[in-house]
């Protein structure tokens, strides 16, 4: 068996884009997500269209026994990996005090715990005969505290910090870690509505998932630490870094509150 690229969250909008991009480059894949039907359909389609091997196995990354079972499955099949793309992540947007305690637990379990365990586990199964590439999907939200996305932006900041540090640790073994920090992406009808509600700013910061996936992989192959798609987003990040975080949080809070009000109006 050829070494595989593992993609978590493979049946989501961004996950599919990465899966398609990797398959189009002739790479064999291992896909995981919660839904078996979606995975099986995608795997069959990619295999047929691009002539690559695509293995899939469902896993609930918020659940440790499910994660253990996933690794057992991989070990039983003697799988070896040449890359890992951690996409699985979620957000429950809105005021923190309005969340349920299950939602609060899930954000850290998936965005942080799930990511760490996958990275740890797949590194153990890496193909030592070639460079190993990790892509962690963080977010532009990693750079500043975001009211109404407080847990999400904090979890992405965790990922970004961790990835940059891990990149240094893994240098001697020829492995690289690239953090993708996009703005909003039009992945679902809900996301598209969210982008529309942000008006002009939403439109100019949004990049298509195909563009993001292709460019991220190119950056990962070069071993870059961070990739921010889109020149506008790069500028935003730069300007944001000149302003104290507390001030940024305040400005972002105003903007997001406006966007939420607009979305409520659109939904009525």
């Amino acid at each position, binding site marked *: 068996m050829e070494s595989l690229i593992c993609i978590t969250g493979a049946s989501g*909008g961004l996950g*599919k*884009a990465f*899966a*398609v*991009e990797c*398959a*189009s480059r002739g790479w064999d894949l291992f896909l995981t997500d919660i839904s078996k039907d*979606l995975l099986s*359909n*995608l795997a*069959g*389609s*990619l295999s*047929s*269209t691009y*002539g690559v091997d695509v293995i899939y196995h469902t896993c609930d990354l918020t659940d440790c026994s499910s994660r253990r079972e996933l690794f057992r499955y991989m070990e039983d099949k003697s799988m070896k990996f040449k890359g890992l793309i951690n996409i699985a992540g979620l957000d429950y947007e809105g005021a923190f005090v309005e969340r349920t305690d299950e939602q609060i637990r899930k954000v850290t379990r998936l965005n942080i715990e799930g990511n760490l365990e996958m990275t740890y586990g797949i590194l153990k199964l890496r193909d030592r005969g070639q460079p190993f590439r990790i892509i962690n999907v963080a977010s532009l939200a990693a750079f500043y505290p975001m009211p109404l996305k407080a847990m999400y932006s904090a979890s992405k900041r965790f990922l970004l910090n961790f990835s940059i540090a891990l990149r240094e640790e893994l240098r001697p073994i020829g492995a690289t870690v690239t953090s993708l920090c996009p703005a909003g992406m*039009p992945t679902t009808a809900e996301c*598209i509505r969210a*982008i*529309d509600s942000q008006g002009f700013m939403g*439109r100019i910061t*949004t990049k*298509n*998932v*195909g*563009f993001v*996936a*292709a*460019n991220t992989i190119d950056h990962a192959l070069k071993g870059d630490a961070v990739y921010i798609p889109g020149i506008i987003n790069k500028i935003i990040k730069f300007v944001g870094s000149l302003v104290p975080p507390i001030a940024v949080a305040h400005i972002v809070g105003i903007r997001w509150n406006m966007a939420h009000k607009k979305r409520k109006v659109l939904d009525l």
Partner: protein
Amino acid sequence: MNIKENISGKTIVITGSTSGIGFATALLLAKHGANIIGIGRSDSKCRRAEDSIRSSCKDPHVAYIIADLSSLKQVKELAKNIRQRLGNEKNGKIDVLINAAGTFTSWYVNTVDGFEMQFAVNYLAPFLLTNELMPLLKRAPAGRVITVSSGSHYRTAINWKDIMLRKHYNCLMAYKQSKLADVLFTMELNRRMGQMSTVRAFAADPGLVNTDIGFKGTSGIARWIWKIRRRSGTNPSVAAESIAFLSCEPSIQHSENIYWKDCKPLKPSRYSQRADAAQRLWEISKRMCARYMLDPASGYTNMSEE
């Protein structure tokens, strides 16, 4: 041309028939006595369309089936469903297949199969559906496959390096390409069937039509542009007349003219007439649909050029 004489009693399958050009065509053909099998994504829209047609016709023969054409699995299920319905009838056949379903999406969206949405709905679904229904089309004395294309296929080429336009998606280019693919498909289908076949394929250019296509998968600027542009479009019933002509005019059964607008032949783009491009696209599409084309009884697999 007397539509009524030529259309009455014919079985016609129409995709995208809950609104726009597809609905107008279904209504027109039902009024003239055709048996209509309509297809739409939404249960409520299908019911509304069916009710509307029933209340407008003296003796309506219409049934709607729900299918989301962005999923190849659903396209296959739809075909199986239609084959079962018509297979149970004594002389079950399809006289006309009208691929009228079309979409326009502002953003690059992947379908469940990992294909770009416009490519999947506007082109790949007709490709697979036509294949799966070909055995029934062959049973008709004068079978027709009509695919709604567009004048936007001119001045376009297929981007072979990135056929889904993943990396540099441009919604208009994606639309133009999908409509070009429809013409290439129509040309190649006719080449493979042969000019004297009982099944003939045509591409219909409806011109600019006032429909909701620009509002359904779009945001912001695209919506605003369509809102203005569509005002100078014709009513869908005009396009329906043209498609009705292509469905039943006997004299064109072996016509060399493949591309039609307003009931008159029109020269399609030079690129769309290229046999090498059409063949290349066909082979790619077969690979994409391979899982669903395994049935030896399905249409394309028993053509001589295979």
